[in-house]
């Protein structure tokens, strides 16, 4: 198991090398400096920078994601041991989901999912 993971780590490293090699070839043979380097903005000179604060909607989405995803991770051990944990385990999870469901309803009520 550990060595399998170690192997995967190796694999990830090699996976890094392969695009690296693929990118090294154009560095040798591809032309350079043939194009205009201004950012593309539909053919106009860009107004201001693209480095700016962004709509809060997207942050809200990522916050929601964290809530739900963390819960999902808690469910994994239960799912594997479902048959050993039996009814008590099942009801614990139901409680867990119900508590989260209350939070979900709160989000809906707060209209956190509406865009306008």
């Amino acid at each position: 198991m550990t060595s399998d993971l170690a192997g995967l780590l190796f694999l990830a490293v090699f996976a890094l090398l392969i695009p690296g090699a693929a990118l090294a070839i154009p560095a040798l043979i591809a032309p350079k400096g043939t194009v205009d380097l201004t950012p593309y903005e539909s053919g106009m000179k860009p107004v201001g920078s693209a480095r700016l604060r962004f709509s809060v909607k997207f942050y809200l989405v990522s916050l929601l994601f964290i809530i739900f995803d963390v819960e999902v991770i808690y469910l994994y051990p239960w799912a594997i041991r479902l048959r050993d944990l039996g009814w008590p385990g099942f009801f614990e999870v139901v409680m867990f989901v119900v508590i989260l469901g209350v939070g979900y309803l709160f989000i809906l009520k707060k209209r956190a999912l509406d865009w306008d």
Partner: protein
Amino acid sequence: MAVAIPHREELMLNMGPHHPSTHGVLRFILHTDGEVMRKAVPDVGYLHRGIEKIAERQPFAGFVPFTDRVNYLEAIFANQAYALAVERLAGIQVPPRAEYLRVIAAELNRIASHQISIGSVSMDIGAYTPFLYLLREREKINDLFEALCGQRLTFNYLRLGGVAFDVKDEWLRRLEAFLDHFEPAIDEFNSLISANEIFVKRLAHVAPISAADAVGYGLVGPNLRASGVDWDLRRDQPYGIYPELEFDVPVGRGIRGEVGDCYDRFWLRVEEMRQSCRLLRQAVAKLPAGDVCAKVLRKLKLPAGEAYGCVEGARGELGFYVVTDGTDKPYRVKIRSGSFAALSIIEHLSRGLMIADLVAVIATLDVLAPEMDR
């Protein structure tokens, strides 16, 4: 154009002139808060060719090919509107066969233009395939036009006093075969996309234009009718032989959302294609024999005067206002086109829309840059 320094949390970006869904070269300056728009300001003039000025240097007949370039998707209508204005000034009587051929050419052109229009609606919504199905059909119209006048896009088919070429029965049979094929093809298109749930959700209830707004901003043609205003120049201000033909004028009913929303504007054009097919069949059936062009002096000199000729184009009223001063050239020509009015309402509509909605609005208003800039 003055560029205001954007508000701090406001993302200001240029959509166009080089952007896939600004048809032609057209620019919008978007002020957005993330995905939601504060406003979209159109900026015109990237395709200005000075056609109105060119008219002042051309003999009356010599300007006809230039009218093709006003809007490359509806060349026949521009031909016809200009011809109407000059014929009115010169008192030319167009022979009946030519009138029928004008209707045939115009309605074919209307179908071709609507095909591009509704096809690009579906393409801008993200469904690429229906667009190509319509282009496939449009190729056949182009073939027909090529056989008719040797051109596939800038037809230059109309002449002052009539049309350039007569048609053979063979061509009319081909036209009928095309109609037999195309009417089911509209159903095919509808089954591909019109009823698609995502497509409907993207268009219904988006950017509705009230009848008052539509009239106030001077919208014409399908955009006006989609808002529930029953106004069609072919019926209400008749020209040519349209009074002799039977057709319905579809009006926006809010079939999927509310009256005047994007879906209505889309659907109206689908319906108009059917009406055009109806008109074409009638025109083919009734086509009289005779001359196709009245005798018009080669060097036409018109007395001082002015006239306005307008037709119901694919993008609504397309009008040529011609002023003469007794020479063989117009003194001034002013073109009134539907796209310009349609563009002007976008800033009003844009507040609170999303970027993706703006694309739908541009596509369904059928804004075309060359017609706007001339």
